[in-house]
């Protein structure tokens, strides 16, 4: 369970990205967060693993405060939180396998990690993660030799190798074409179901949010303006989230 408690984030330049977020996300829920660029979606999911520190309030995961965690404790928390990114954030010149093994870094001793001395168990987990996203045979290729969709699957495999309890996905399909986007979203949803992983996904696309989400959270200017099921997320609701009328034909299919 993830609890956001009166969470506020003000960046050093004075920009208030989050203005008091209160949300409780039960274990295993697949939550899609929608909103315009700059609404605070990326900031919100980065507070879960403390890549962005809160200025006020706290994030509590299974009763453990992320804000109060010391360095070692924070690394343990992070090791159980997988994260995937819009631009995949793979190390392009490294092999696919080495990228996925990076997901084990939080689970092995620092020295073993630095020297790359991964156990058979770690290697097996890495290969199993690649198999689950359907690219087992790509393990020894360089990451930049793969297509965008395959690279995002490597990103998912890296997160899976962590054996995560929470998965954070920051615009995971914004750099992909529509069919690939659906394939990646299906993978995320399936894995969330199979492993009971609590998943937070930032999305631009309204139709995808409705299709995959258990729950949709709408954000505008750093506050939650909508929180409900996909059935409740009507066009009217989205107009409130985006703060302007939606032309269904133009906005839904384009880059809303």
């Amino acid at each position, binding site marked *: 369970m993830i609890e956001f408690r009166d969470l506020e984030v003000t960046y050093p330049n004075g920009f208030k990205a989050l203005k008091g977020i209160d949300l409780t996300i039960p274990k295993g829920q697949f939550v899609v967060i929608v909103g315009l660029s700059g609404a605070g979606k990326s900031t919100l999911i980065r507070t879960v*693993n403390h*890549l962005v520190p809160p200025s006020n309030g706290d994030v509590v995961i299974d009763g453990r405060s992320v804000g109060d965690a010391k*360095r070692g404790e924070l*690394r*343990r*928390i*992070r*090791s*159980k*939180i*997988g*994260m995937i*990114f819009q*631009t*995949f*954030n*793979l*190390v*392009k*010149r*490294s092999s696919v396998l*080495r990228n996925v093994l*990076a*997901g*084990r*870094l*939080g*689970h092995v001793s*620092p020295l073993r*990690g*630095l020297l790359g001395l991964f156990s058979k168990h770690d290697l097996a987990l890495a290969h199993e993660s690649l198999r689950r996203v359907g690219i087992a045979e790509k393990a020894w290729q360089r990451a930049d030799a793969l297509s965008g969709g395959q690279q995002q699957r490597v*990103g998912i495999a*890296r997160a899976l190798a*962590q054996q995560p309890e929470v998965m*954070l996905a920051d615009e995971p399909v914004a750099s992909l074409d529509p069919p690939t986007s659906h394939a990646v979203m299906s993978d995320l949803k399936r894995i969330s179901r199979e492993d009971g992983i609590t998943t937070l996904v930032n999305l631009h696309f309204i139709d995808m949010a409705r299709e995959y989400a258990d729950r949709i959270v709408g954000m505008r200017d750093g506050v939650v303006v909508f929180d409900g099921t996909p059935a409740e997320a009507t066009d009217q609701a989205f107009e409130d989230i985006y703060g302007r009328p939606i032309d269904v034909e133009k906005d839904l299919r384009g880059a809303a």
Partner: protein
Amino acid sequence: MLPEPAGTPAIPERPAGQRKVAAATLATFVALFVVSAWQTGFSVGDLATGTGDFFRFFGRMVPNWGYLPRVWGPILETLQIAYLGTLFGTALALPLLFLASANTTTDRVTLAVSRSVLTVLRSIPDLLYAALLAPILAIGPLPGVVALTLFSLAVLAKLGSETVEAADPGPMEAVRATGAGRNRVIVYAVVPQVAATMTSYVLYVFEINVRASVIIGLVGAGGIGQDLLARLNFFAYGDVSTIIVVIFVLVLAIDALSVWARSKLI
């Protein structure tokens, strides 16, 4: 097809500010040229009259191939000085370049201190290091190795930290998000991004060091430079020519090798 515009619009003028900057830049270059040429007494006439002396001197520069066997020892020492200087310099630069990069070192004091150390090291030319160190460490290859170590360290740490700071921050964020600490983030997300470029810089610095180790020999830091100076002082121009030919061939060979190796890296 776009419709024809009604009436030709006026071509916009380049802003006056930009034109002033261009004019000022040109004026600065011309002024510096005039002042430099006048104060150094640079004269095309002297260059022309000097040509005769040059050819007479050149006539005495026929290589004395009998001296060749005595070149190999010192030239090997020159290569060894360059190699050791590059090796030690690289070893010292590797930790320092991460301490001097803003994206791998967040502590401001550490960052400022390591950058200042590098700036001071870099501000002293290798020839000066050798000249200062030769009397302290005794004439010979040791001051040469230390001088080139300091020079390589300063150059590689500077170039390296610039490369590290230009690295894509995305992979670093991703590896940090898995629960890895700073050193593991560097090893997994930064090193693979900069390794090829850094290796190329190391080869380039070795190239420079081979040339530099000839020069620093002139101030007593070992190698072929020391012999070169001695033969010059004895007016043994034939021997000097032999040494120069060998240096020429060696530098060409090292350059070609280094260029080839670097082309394989990227």
